């Protein structure tokens, strides 16, 4: 692999992975904020308003970090992936510009009102501002997924005389079937992160025996949303997303599953290590027939193995793809178990005194982040060796004039800067957590 290409890929991977730690919380949290604000109006209890103020602050910090680390993403399409932008900008520029025009303005404007305008707006308009912030965040997610969905499964285009990619159907681009399942799966994932963070922090307060009434509100809201979201994550969204991959990217499916040999009644590997020299899975733990059933809804159906695809169509890092996918699924399963158990205890009225379960909820906070990240690695490494699936290879998309040396300079710069950003972020959030929701109630509205 040419080293400039490797550095450009690494820089994009690093910056986008870091960036997505923030929006995945804001998108999920935005929905939970609307729920809490609705409860505040419905019940008239001030505790819900205080909860909204507290979480709005955490939302605000996350949002600022998301914006700060998001601008480099849009820029890098031009700076590092100029050949790709030149060829496909007329298509994906549409969705990226729509994100700016429709969602960023909406989100940033109404977040200003949510954070600074509660007194002047009154409860109903403040609810409206919260809902609009949520809409902005979710629209933003949609346009990004529409962009990625098109790169995964290009539709609505025609090829020009010089190989340039010309948008031919705007509706086709927006209603790309791939996009909608990926969007549903992704947004559910962000609700999972939001609910685990909310429930986990509630558990933290309950375990500490501080701000307990807030802790109960947070745990109740987080677990209720979380049990729904974790299950929807698996079915239907995860399942449908899998079927999309099986249908449109069968090589990717085989690599994800570590499925090397074409066979009928294909088993699914729960664990195992892909051995790329022998082209086999070491130490596999298999569930018979499962892959055939999940892929084709038929226990004995044939599933094509990786060996039977031309090598130059294989994703270029099969083990990474395999592990990312298995980590996502494995963690997803555990997250379902945690939320179902918590929901059961909540329903029986025993959760707030079940300290072991609260500990589990607290310690679970990092895992939805890891699962979401692993999911995105699966999607993006799975798309390789293509930048636009079937149309443009990743090798062809890179900026022709930006050297490896200049690329490494900026990659290192980003690493240093993001280290600082990450530390400041954790510390800022920790301060808010330490002050607790009461402090937020006292210093109403402001930063």
């Amino acid at each position, binding site marked *: 692999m040419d080293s400039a290409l490797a550095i450009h890929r690494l820089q994009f991977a690093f910056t986008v992975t870091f960036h997505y730690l923030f929006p995945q919380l804001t998108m999920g949290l935005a929905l939970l904020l609307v729920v809490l604000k609705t409860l505040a109006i419905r019940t008239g209890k001030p505790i819900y308003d205080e909860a909204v103020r507290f979480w709005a602050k955490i939302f605000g910090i996350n949002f600022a*970090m998301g914006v700060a680390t998001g*601008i480099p993403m849009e820029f890098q399409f*031009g700076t590092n992936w100029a050949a790709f932008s030149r060829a496909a900008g007329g298509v994906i520029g549409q969705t990226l510009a729509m*994100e*700016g025009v429709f969602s960023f303005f909406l989100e*940033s404007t109404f977040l200003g009102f949510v954070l600074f305008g509660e007194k002047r707006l009154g409860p109903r308009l403040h609810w409206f501002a919260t809902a609009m912030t949520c809409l902005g965040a979710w629209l933003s997610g949609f346009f990004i997924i529409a962009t990625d969905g098109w790169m995964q499964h290009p539709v609505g285009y025609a090829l020009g005389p010089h190989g340039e990619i*010309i948008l031919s159907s705007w509706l086709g681009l927006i209603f790309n079937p791939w996009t909608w399942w990926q969007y549903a799966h992704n947004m559910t994932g962000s609700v999972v992160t939001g609910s685990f963070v909310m429930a986990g922090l509630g558990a933290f307060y309950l375990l500490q025996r501080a701000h307990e009434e807030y802790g109960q509100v947070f745990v109740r809201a987080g677990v209720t949303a979380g049990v729904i979201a974790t299950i929807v994550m698996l079915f239907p969204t995860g399942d449908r997303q899998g079927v999309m991959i099986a249908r449109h990217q069968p090589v990717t499916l085989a690599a994800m599953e570590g499925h090397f040999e074409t066979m009928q009644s294909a088993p699914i590997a729960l664990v195992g290590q892909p051995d790329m020299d022998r082209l086999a899975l070491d130490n596999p733990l298999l569930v018979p027939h499962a892959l055939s059933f999940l892929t084709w809804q038929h226990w004995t159906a044939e599933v094509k193995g990786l060996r039977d695809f031309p090598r130059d169509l294989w994703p270029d890092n099969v083990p990474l793809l395999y592990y990312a996918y298995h980590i996502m699924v494995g963690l997803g399963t555990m997250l379902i178990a945690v939320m179902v158990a918590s929901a059961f205890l909540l329903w029986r009225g025993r959760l707030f005194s079940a300290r072991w379960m609260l500990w589990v909820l607290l310690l679970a906070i990092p895992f939805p982040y890891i699962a979401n990240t692993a999911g995105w690695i699966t999607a993006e490494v799975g798309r390789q060796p293509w930048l636009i699936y079937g149309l443009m290879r990743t090798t062809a998309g890179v900026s022709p004039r930006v050297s490896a040396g200049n690329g490494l300079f900026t990659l290192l710069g980003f690493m240093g800067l993001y280290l600082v950003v990450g530390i400041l972020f954790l510390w*800022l959030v920790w301060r808010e957590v330490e002050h607790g929701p009461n402090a937020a109630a006292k210093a109403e509205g402001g930063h």
Partner: protein
Amino acid sequence: METLWFCLVAIMVAGYVVLDGYDLGSGFAHLFVARDERERKQILATIGPVWDGNEVWLLAGGGTLYFAFPVLYAASFSGFYLALMIVLWLLILRAISVEVRNHVDSPLWRPFWDVVFGSTSSLLCLLFGVALGNVVRGVPLDASGYFFIPLWTNFLPGEEAGIIDWYTVLIGLASFCALALHGSLWVALRTTGDLSRRSRLTAARLWWVVLLLTVAITLVSFAIQPHLYGQFMRWPWGYLFPALAVIGLAGVFVFNRASDDLRAFLASCTYLAGMLTSVVFGVYPLVLPANNPRFSLDIHNAAAPTYGLQIGLVWWIPGMILASAYSVFLHRHFSKRVEPD
């Protein structure tokens, strides 16, 4: 159709400069006009609810440029790679400084972030001017449609020019001073008491510098890029744009002297928009002049195909009307002068 999108992108850029210009410019006032913690807090409070939304104009403008002129986006962003990355880092640092400054009450913490905020804001003002200077001067585009330009070479605006040469630095300085003036007028408009009065005074002093630099860059630009001259000869109605800038600058002087802060600020908006549209008009129909005119990018060879541009109008126009409405609404809502605590 290409011309229409050229104008729309220009409007986005002008919107960005006028809006984010005042909060970037207030970084100057933050360092050099405000005298104590109370006054710095006042300044930050004037931009607190709006700066995020202003920065969105950059993103939306970038997105619009991307889909309307993808070839330009690809060539310029990869060509100005290093400068753009530095802009990104400055934007990130600036956002962080606004966000974290008020969280800790310490005699070391706040001054540190004040310097970060003031200097990143000021450097951004300078760099945006340098970028504009590069577009006017031209870049070493070749037959491949790409170029790569180092940060600096011999500081001369010739064939071997870097991003920074004496000409682009001059434009950068002009941009820095114009935005410092803009920011001071904003602070004068949105605060009360002594801070407001001193901002007005600073603006009055900066005005002379801006006047001097405006004359200088106008003369030099016509010498550096002969294309500008041809444009104004061909379509004399284009003098409307520089006239707008002159009226704006005169307005700043008159209204600032009369302590009419709102009109002075609006005059400054007019000045900035007039300067920017003058440049844009002068460069048209080019979007990125090359040292070798054969390889220049213009609105035709850089634009996306017609269907995309047409369908783009359908959502872009209502979308931006809505977005502008939010901006107006937000500014009206937070239009009261900020008192010291």
